[in-house]
């Protein structure tokens, strides 16, 4: 959990930072992301709240308007629905509405996207929801390196940042490069990363879907197809340039996400490619792989069928490339 290490090291001497949310202090956070922070930094910097998302999001937003730098944790982003007015209408628009006089340097973070066995109301991706809104920056990290580098960037950012972590990825261990382990490591917001280079097709994904795309690429590699996997890292701003560059090389594009298809991240990417020169680099129409267009069911079989798997990616690539 790179987030914890980052905080325990970085918070010394930082001014105005505090984390607020349900059970972030004494209970160490619902997913133990804030473990040890309360013991180390105390009540002033790590604040447990009553169960009122609308309330503590408003309080955090107000604190940011007054010059502090809050990190507002949601137990999951599903609960942020109770507070979405504060995020979009207040945090996201205050800088604009105040004619640039009041900025809102705040990070809204918590797990997002499909989890396991928690069904319709607890298992969904809000990437497209927040990425839709000007005024917000939206980050959807995949690996430990992403989390460390981008959370740091988010905390330092003068604008409100929505930081969409993933519950399934909390339990995954990633190897970190020496560079990523260094004290000064930080990643720029709005830049994608090529997770796996390839030449036959571009797979664009974010969050846990990067893992699905990589699994697909692994299956394909055994069959002589080299897929390039792009980890978007940020959803707003979206790194269209990185995608265009890759498509110019591979001439094929598939987007992979766990969210729904309609007005989704994949839909946005395909529309942007259509609008630019990159369109002419495509040998086949680009395709979206998304979660099924239904609310998430609970039963294991149905849940599995409702989410794209590595095998689905491999199948779609082969279909697109007309390979048997």
């Amino acid at each position, binding site marked *: 959990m790179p987030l914890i290490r980052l905080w325990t090291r970085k918070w010394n001497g930082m001014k105005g930072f505090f984390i607020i949310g*349900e*059970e972030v202090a*004494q*209970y160490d956070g619902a997913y133990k992301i804030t473990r040890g922070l309360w013991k180390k930094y105390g009540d002033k910097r790590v604040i*447990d*709240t*009553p*169960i*009122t*998302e*609308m*309330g503590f999001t408003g309080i955090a937003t107000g604190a940011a308007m007054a010059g502090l730098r809050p990190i507002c944790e949601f137990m999951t982003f*599903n*609960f942020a*629905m*109770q507070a979405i007015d504060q995020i979009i209408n207040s945090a996201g628009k205050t800088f604009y509405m105040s004619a640039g006089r009041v900025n809102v340097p705040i990070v809204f973070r918590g797990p997002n996207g499909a989890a*396991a*066995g*928690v*069904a*319709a*109301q*607890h298992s969904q991706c809000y990437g497209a929801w927040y990425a839709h809104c000007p005024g917000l920056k939206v980050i959807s990290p995949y690996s430990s390196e992403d989390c460390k580098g981008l959370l740091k960037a988010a905390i330092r950012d003068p604008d409100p940042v929505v930081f969409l972590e993933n519950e399934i990825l909390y339990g995954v261990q990633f190897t970190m490069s020496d560079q990523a382990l260094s004290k000064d490591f930080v990643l720029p917001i709005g830049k994608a990363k090529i997770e796996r280079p390839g030449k036959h097709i571009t797979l664009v994904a974010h969050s846990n879907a990067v893992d699905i795309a990589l699994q697909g690429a692994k299956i394909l590699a055994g069959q002589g197809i080299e897929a390039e996997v792009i980890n978007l890292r940020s959803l707003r701003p979206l790194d269209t340039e990185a995608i265009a560059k890759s498509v110019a090389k591979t001439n094929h594009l598939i987007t992979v996400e766990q969210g729904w298809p309609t007005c989704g991240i994949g839909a946005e990417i395909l529309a942007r490619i259509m609008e630019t020169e990159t369109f002419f680099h495509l040998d086949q129409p680009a395709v979206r792989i998304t979660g*099924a*267009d*239904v*609310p998430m*069911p*609970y*039963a*294991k*079989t*149905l849940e*599995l*069928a*409702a989410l794209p*798997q590595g*095998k*689905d990616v491999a*199948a779609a690539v082969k279909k697109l490339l007309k390979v048997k």
Partner: protein
Amino acid sequence: MRVVICRIHLKLRDIEFRATFDGVYDYAVRILCTYKRTSIRAYYRLKLLLFPGAKTTWSEKIEFIKMKSYRPIPVYRVLDRQGNVINPAEDPKLPEDIVIKMYKSMSLLNNVDKILYESQRQGRISFYMTNYGEEASHIGSAAALNNEDIIYGQYREVGVLIWRGFTLQQLVDQCYGNKDDIGKGRQMPVHYGSKELNFITISSPLSTQMPQAVGSAYTLKNTNQVVVCYFGEGAASEGDAHAAFNFAATLDCPVVLFCRNNGYAISTPIKEQYKGDGIAARGPSYGIHTLRVDGNDVFAVYNATKLAKEYAIKENKPLEIIPHQMIVLPTDLPSEIKQWTTNDYPVMKLRYYIEKRGLWDEDKEKEWMKKSRNDILNAFNAGEKKLKPKWTEMFNDVYKDIPSNILKQQDYMNKHAPYNKYYYSDLGSNPDTG
């Protein structure tokens, strides 16, 4: 009589001046224009209507109203710790079969918890919520209602369903999301629901059931039904709780707002959740009649719910009941709470009572425990073995009529599924177990 009227007349004039001087009470002045009997009533109303929305009087002394200015709302109880009825007038005098059904349901609930909670710990189901310590709240309230009364639960109200006739097999099938789950494997474990039993399906987001319950109650005005809305004291921190209280009061809805106060919102203690005299004190401030009840005393909860239902139907008004349960959620309990837990376990209290009435003994207890455990284990084993729903279930019920885009998806899946048999067994079996 004449003298009395004169005196009232003088007072009326006094108030009339004050109202005129303050220049805001046209209404007051208008109703003072007549001196008939209605105006005497109007006077009394007026005397209390000096401020918009507040029935109060003037004060010339500056003084804060503090938490200690009021006596805390007392906790109503029927039984003492040893299961004796303290005031015989409050004994609901329930017949033997009902009392035994109460005891059996309460102790069964505890056994259901043990098995399903263990099953969650072992990863067989993804989620569980125990009902330990809340048995009297569930059963006491359920017994005072009819199956026609609509229940909005939060997620710790399975006792109400059991009382209404939901079977153990139905409970287990829901938790496993298997092919016989009446929820078709769509919902998380413990998100039970039954249209036949008027139990609205549990919804995960906290407190959303509260304004919804009030809305349902609005449609039940002037009928013989009420809505009972269960919520935890932590849930009362959500904005929806305020909306529910306020609308219940202003729209005069026959709803019983039933706050199960067990002292902890998962692991956040009440002292970090609210201040003052608790959720009960909010009732009167919203204009809602309120009872604070010993949640470990099944008869107290029964009497309270019965009275609340009668009142709600008669007056078309909302009620608030706040049973304070035993506190059992966190593992690391402060000592005073531990004491509360061991001394006031609701099932034990009722057992003392039925033993004293000569309705129960050690042999019956042993026999019942054995039977109830067996029943649960049988249901559990059967439920775990059942197949999961077929993948085609995924596409039903998104809309009433399946639209073309979903049909297209279904068609695509139909072609795709045989391609990856390992994942999408047509039998709907769990790929992990083959």
